[in-house]
């Protein structure tokens, strides 16, 4: 019974994520994170970070990869059964795609109307900056967490993602390589793994 509730919660969560993801896989990560890590506490920050890494490195769209992985982890953690994990990943992935079906098929019907709507363009002009901000929030939440006691915030570093000072060097190096060096993300992750093996 509890497992069924969990499955339904998982399906609803991923349906919402699918309906509100604007602007690709990274935009989805912030939604997914606030739902799965912060609101439901199904998986930890470090487990989530690992899932992002694996999703980036493996073939297929990041969003689908992450959904499959999260669905597996949540059900597997809760029940300890592998086949339940498989079921969880199936439910998560299908629920994630479901809103797209309705929306895209609706767009197909109104294709021409939709295409030159300045109203649509105007709204997207507001939406895109917000999505960028949300992606930024996803990165911030993997670094610090804020707890509020009344109006007093207390900040705590996400220790699991930052083992020591070397972690900060890795973060900086990856940023330089990716932002200015335009190095392929997969290569950056592989370099991170190799350096992790050498440094720790």
């Amino acid at each position, binding site marked *: 019974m509890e497992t069924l509730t969990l499955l339904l919660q998982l399906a609803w969560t991923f349906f919402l994520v699918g309906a509100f993801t604007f602007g690709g896989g990274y935009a989805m990560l912030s939604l997914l994170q606030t739902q799965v890590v912060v609101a439901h506490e199904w998986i930890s920050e470090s487990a989530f970070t690992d899932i992002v890494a694996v999703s980036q490195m493996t*073939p297929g769209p990041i969003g689908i990869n992450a959904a499959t992985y999260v669905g597996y982890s949540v059900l597997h953690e809760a029940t300890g059964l592998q086949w339940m994990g498989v079921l969880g990943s199936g439910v998560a992935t299908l629920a994630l795609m479901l809103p797209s079906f309705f929306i895209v098929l609706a767009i197909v019907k109104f294709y021409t109307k939709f295409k030159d709507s300045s109203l649509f363009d105007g709204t997207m002009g507001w939406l895109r900056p917000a999505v960028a901000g949300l992606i930024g929030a996803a990165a*911030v939440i993997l670094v610090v967490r804020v707890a509020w006691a009344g109006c007093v915030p207390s900040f705590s570093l996400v220790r699991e993602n930052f083992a020591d000072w070397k972690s900060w060097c890795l973060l900086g190096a990856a940023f330089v390589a990716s932002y200015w060096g335009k190095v392929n993300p997969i290569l950056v992750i592989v370099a991170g793994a190799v350096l992790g*093996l050498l440094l720790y």
Partner: protein
Amino acid sequence: MEGKKVSLLQIFAVFAKIGAFTIGGGYAMIPIIQREMSRRGWISDDELPDIVALSQSAPGVMAVNISIFAGYRLRGVAGSIAATLGSVTPSFVIILALAMFFSAFRDNPWVERAFKGIRPVVISLIAVPMINMARKACTSWWKWLIAAASLLLVAFLNVSPIYILLCVIVLGFSVTYFNQKWKR
């Protein structure tokens, strides 16, 4: 596209191939889709930009949206289901295999050390597309304000991104609508 009907199995197979060779998200998928579609004469090169643009602006995973769109063009709703299942299947199988592997090996010291190095790197890899996106999308100071406010509200005040998106959609739609009305 005219004349001979494309079989659902064929659609599934082509999109499975596309899914299997896409590494790193929807954008990496575009050139592969283009090659596969134009080679078969399924979708012409000048139609594709429209499909991509619409798939980007529709909510959801972009790769899924493109598959639904392209599949629909080929065989209607059944085609869109075949295409979507095709593009998702390789991911699904590979990730499941990896997830099972990692749930068994997560405590392995080698895996743990590798991930100690990977975790901080991933954060930068999320930050970089955010900055690129913000620089492109924030064309005026108040758009920077929207971006900053969304970031702060979600990261520090634990507001759900869904509420923020809903507010911005309503606000953006109303402002654009009334702007157009007054200009007339």
